[in-house]
């Protein structure tokens, strides 16, 4: 195109133009960055300062002290809390991932009512976790619908015989809610990667004599890796910091770390509130650190494979 490039500031001397350009960039980024810096980064910094004993709000200022961390690490049940938090976060991520990969691969096919199915499977993605909690209580509680069906066909006699799925440290109820909500999410991400790929490389592999399992393992899986990494990282981080589901469906003390953090923060005793901030920092650092390692590992893996 032969039209001259329009630039409203082009008649200005170059140094000034560069400065104005930078100013414009900063100005346009400022509102969004301000919200995130003040609220999100500010929140984390304030939480960190409080966990070190800086809390003029409660007339406490023993900054800097590691006292709240020491108390936390030596308190009864803390390490069990850590275990449960990992357990409830990891298992649904893993199980959900396997279910999602298979669902995404199946979705590539043409089948009757596919259009309708694409509405249906996304529904859990669109509604709050609390709806999932509510459905789980209705179905899986000891006197719930499933227990009643089992009673009807004569498998159990009394609700006590139904396995405890909710309000128990096995965490089955919590994990059911996570998987139910998150499979559509991970499926969507993997499916959208698959859509961008096209069938060529898989067909080539098949032509060259690979069996379906080999095709999946050596051709499809590496190609959908970016989707898998993103999906699992987001889901794990969410589960690790999730509050309402373990709060309602968990087995009581020791609770997961986010629930313990809320309980401590909800305590009228200011010292406990500072302890809550120590828990918050532990959650952030552990979750952030793990995800960093996870993504670093993935980068190295891609590099070794010759892709960047």
């Amino acid at each position: 195109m032969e039209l001259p490039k329009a630039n409203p500031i082009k008649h200005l001397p170059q140094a000034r133009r560069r400065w104005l350009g930078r100013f414009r960039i900063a100005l346009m980024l400022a509102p969004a960055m301000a919200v995130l810096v003040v609220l999100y980064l500010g929140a984390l910094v304030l939480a960190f300062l409080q966990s070190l004993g800086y809390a003029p709000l409660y007339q406490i200022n023993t900054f800097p002290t590691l006292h709240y961390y020491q108390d936390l690490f030596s308190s009864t049940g803390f390490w069990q809390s850590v275990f449960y938090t990992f357990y409830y976060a990891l298992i649904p991520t893993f199980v959900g991932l396997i279910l999602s990969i298979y669902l995404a691969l199946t979705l590539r096919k043409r089948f009757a009512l596919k259009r309708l199915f694409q509405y249906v499977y996304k529904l859990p993605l669109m509604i709050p976790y609390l709806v999932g909690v509510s459905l789980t209580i209705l179905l899986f509680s000891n006197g719930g619908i499933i227990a009643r069906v089992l009673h009807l066909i004569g498998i159990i006699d009394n609700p006590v015989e139904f396995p405890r799925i909710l309000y128990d440290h096995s965490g089955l109820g919590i994990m059911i809610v996570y998987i139910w909500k998150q499979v559509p999410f991970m499926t969507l991400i993997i499916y959208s990667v698959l859509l961008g790929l096209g069938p060529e490389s898989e067909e080539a592999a098949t032509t060259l004599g690979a069996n379906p399992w080999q095709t999946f393992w050596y051709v499809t899986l590496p190609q959908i890796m970016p989707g898998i990494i993103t999906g699992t990282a987001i889901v794990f981080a969410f589960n690790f910091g999730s509050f309402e589901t373990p709060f309602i469906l968990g087995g009581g003390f020791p609770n997961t770390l986010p629930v313990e953090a809320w309980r401590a923060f909800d305590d009228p005793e200011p010292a406990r509130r500072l302890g809550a901030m120590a828990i918050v920092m532990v959650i952030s650092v552990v979750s952030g650190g793990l995800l960093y390692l996870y993504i670093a590992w993935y980068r190295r893996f891609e590099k070794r494979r010759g892709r960047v």
Partner: protein
Amino acid sequence: MTIRERRFSRDGLTPFQRFYLIFFALTVLSPLIPMIIASFAFRWFWPDLLPSEWWASARHTLTQPIGWDYVFSPYSRLFTAIRNTLVIGFSVTLLCLAISLPAARVLAREKFRAKGLVEFFLLTPLIVPEVAIGLGVLLIFIQLGLAGSFVGIVLAHLIPTVPYAIRVLTSVFQNLSTDYEEQAMVLGANPLKTFWHITLPMIFPGIMAGGLFVFLVSSNVFLLTFFVGRGQVETLPTLLFTKVSSGGVLDPVTAGITLITMLPGIILLLITERFIREEVFAKGFSG
């Protein structure tokens, strides 16, 4: 076709795949049936599969409204919760789009030194646990007197939505050629006019898509509303929380509120499936 062939082919499902899809559809849809029954129940004791007495026959025998009568009465605060959810949702959407648009435009079009850092920073709210942000923001708001206020909740909802909106809008701007805007400028339009008459109409579908999902996220957020709202601002998720957190049986009122809390999601699903492709859908989440 043999099963082995079907596994490869783009048409035709294996019996297991068919079962798998039906199973998924059932896990999503079948719990709704007992939920609807529960919302119309009056006496429903173990081990009955259906209520022994229904809402319809009991509602006129009591002095206070029960079941759906209660849900739709002013006493349940359902309409307050719906109104709050909508007001917060719309405010968040408008504010979020207003601050995300310029940022997305810069990120899509300009090169500058700190760009990598800004992009990285925009990703982090997705992977820092919500409870940490929730409690930290609450600390700030307690000090600023924003805890328990609408403004506080709207600002808090910006944290998960702004990074999301920026990512969606950045990809919209990236797919947009700058030619038309440049021509308009050459023809003498000022930047504001150019944006209003040229850029905006072209990116409008993208803005709509981003806006709908921002609204959806805001209407589904529980933790930030609950922490920052301090129980003073009731939205649909917090209303449902008070009902299910007592650990009791799912009573008819809770069942009714559960069904109503699903409505915004269902409506948005019906709207968005029509004109948003799966890739765009996923874009906001995957970065």
